[in-house]
């Protein structure tokens, strides 16, 4: 099995204590993380999975008194909801800012918005924005930790973490697994973060897309590109489908949704090429009948799609907890 880099000292699980486990102020991109930092966040998330499942009352007060602003400059339902639930379960005062109802629409610059949010003394800010690099731009202007909830086509780090956690829990490990990511890789921040995180955790990552939806030089992200879905599925342990945005279906990138389904849709016949116990994943929301057939998406043993949603809350709780430890004066994190 391939070896992945380990932290300098490895007596305890990581050999690191306190802040050494995650010496970052923000969570902006998987590309900024070391493999053991990714594993640390996954380990932390395991705790929250247990808490979330254990009792009816899931409240933990550790973020009490901290204000969490979810600043979403791009529409989102499930990610926003997931961050909101995560914050509330940790006791934070959660406020949502939607671009549609904010002064952003009135021409306020992103920097001005950042300065404004900062002046409100947020304890943590969660940002989604349609432009690659926009979240980092805001993070440079605020004092509190910033969590990237998706910036353009660049990264969506918490999605990659929740996907890695889902795989690790189902398969027992990530290292050595063959993971096939299929769909609109070109426009996908989910694909970018997942390629980086899964490669860092030692998986063999394959990406498959029509040539029109594959970024140039994708090998630099640690993945092997395919155009033939069948070949990419051979022996796969995990099949991760990406959502095909409606605006890409008009003929510019693919001829039609039905042709896409014929060539790149995940059907039971296709799935048979993967390992018999291969896991099926999708970040949602799904286009049933386009990139994925309902019988596959709803398969009781193979589909991990609802579990991904559950892991999302746990991962986001872990990230919110870890990033605010310094401000909360947690021992070893000052």
């Amino acid at each position, binding site marked *: 099995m391939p070896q992945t880099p380990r932290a300098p000292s490895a007596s305890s699980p990581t050999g690191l204590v306190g802040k050494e486990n995650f010496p970052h102020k923000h969570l902006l991109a998987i*590309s900024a993380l070391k493999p053991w930092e990714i594993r640390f966040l996954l380990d932390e998330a395991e705790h929250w999975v247990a808490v979330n499942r254990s009792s009816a009352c899931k409240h933990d007060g550790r973020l009490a008194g901290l204000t969490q602003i979810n600043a979403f400059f791009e529409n989102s339902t499930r990610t926003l909801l997931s961050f909101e639930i995560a914050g509330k379960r940790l006791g934070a005062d959660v406020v949502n800012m939607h671009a549609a109802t904010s002064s952003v629409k009135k021409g306020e*610059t*992103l*920097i001005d918005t950042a300065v404004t949010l900062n002046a409100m003394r947020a304890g943590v800010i969660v940002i989604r*924005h349609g*432009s*690659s*690099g*926009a979240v*980092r*731009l805001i993070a440079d202007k605020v004092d509190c930790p910033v969590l990237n909830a998706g*910036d*353009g*086509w*660049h*990264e969506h780090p918490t999605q990659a973490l929740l996907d890695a956690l889902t795989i690790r829990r189902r398969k027992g490990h990530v290292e050595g697994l063959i993971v096939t990511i299929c769909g609109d890789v070109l426009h996908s*921040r989910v694909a*970018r973060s997942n390629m980086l995180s899964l490669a860092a955790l030692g998986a063999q990552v394959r990406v498959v897309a029509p040539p029109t939806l594959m*970024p*140039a*030089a*994708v090998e*630099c*992200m640690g993945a092997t590109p395919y155009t033939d879905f069948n070949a990419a599925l051979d022996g796969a342990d995990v099949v991760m489908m990406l959502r095909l945005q409606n605006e890409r279906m008009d003929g510019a990138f693919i001829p039609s949704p039905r042709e896409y389904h014929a060539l790149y849709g995940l059907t039971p016949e296709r799935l048979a090429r993967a390992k018999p116990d291969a896991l099926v994943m999708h970040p949602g929301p799904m286009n049933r009948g386009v990139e994925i057939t309902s019988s596959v998406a709803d398969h009781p043993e193979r589909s991990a799609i609802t579990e991904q949603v559950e892991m999302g809350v746990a991962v986001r709780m872990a990230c919110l907890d870890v990033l605010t430890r310094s401000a909360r004066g947690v021992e070893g994190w000052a």
Partner: protein
Amino acid sequence: MGMKGKLAITGGLLADPAGTELAPGTLLIEGDRIVATGALDVPADAEVIDAGGLIVAPGLVDLGVFRTDKPAFHFGGITRAALMPDQSSLLDDVGLINQATRSGKPDFWVHPIAAATRSLEGREMAEIGLMQRAGAKAVGTGRQWIADSGVMYRVLAYASALGLTVISHAEDAGLAGKAVATSGETATRLGLHHAPACAEAMAIARDIALVRETGAAIHFRLVTTQAGFDLIRAAKAEGLAVSCGISPAYLFLSDLAMSDFRTFARLSPPLRSEEDRQAALRAVADGTIDVITSSHDPRGPEDKRLPFADAAPGMAGAETLLALSLNLVRDGLLGMNVLMRLLAANPAKILGVEAGSFAPGHAADIIMIDPDAPWIVDSGKMAAAAGNTPFDRMPVQGRVRRIMKGGSFL
């Protein structure tokens, strides 16, 4: 300009663009014109200026800037600049050309580039002939491509009859689309909209075919790829009136400079791969590249402190043009005289202005250069209207110590 007597600049090393190496000598000026250069006897009635061992060179002629920014131009030794038509009021009208022509005087000369088409939309020809009479020295497509080949064909034919060179932007618009980066690792890592580098060669190939048909003169303002240089080389070998330019950014930076979403490195065309950068260095050494321009485009935070794709393209380049270009001499790619061809004589020739050289009768626009003077580029302390340079914090060498415009020191 009042009547001035004779002036002799002595004690310097002359960087004559027509020469082959730096040579000690005298530059003789009468009024606002150069009279003679070389190993001359200084006339008894001439005022003598001692250059103190500095390099004496023609004032730089910057072919293709986006703003008249005199403090930056004077810092950089630039005495004339061809102004791109992409202004807040596009230079597609006689009145605006008139105004632009006068805008730098008396201590700086602006040579406007007339928009080839109305509103630079690439559809209807602008009044090129009338704008020429108002002072336009070339015709340009602006920072965009004329997608309609029929329109470009007619623009070339029409400008040719007027003796004007067409200055073209070499990026196939269909392929480039909304791209802000060249296809490659950096664009993929950053998740930026990218287009293959061959967008440039495609545009050049079409325009060369139209030049062959019309006999027109064309200048590709920024050529930045191996495939582009190959096409220019072949067109020159064929005897077509084709020339091309580059700016120091494409000679000294690759697309890696965009890492961390640095918007100061958002340029048009976008920065290229390291292979293309190496090809650009070869093209400058073998004479394929005729012009080095600053492509000066100072942009403040309102245009640059934005997400990468939303930021305006362009960099403030006037102050660093000479110092960065001197690296080419230090690295042995060019001699100082050839560099002065690229920075002064060739652009002046393309614009049809009597400047940029030491030829008798040419304008007495002169700079004195201390080629080794070290300094550090600092985006926070620039003379330019804004400090958007991707070369921030870079140590460079070469300063302009004195600058003369039309026979008078500034």
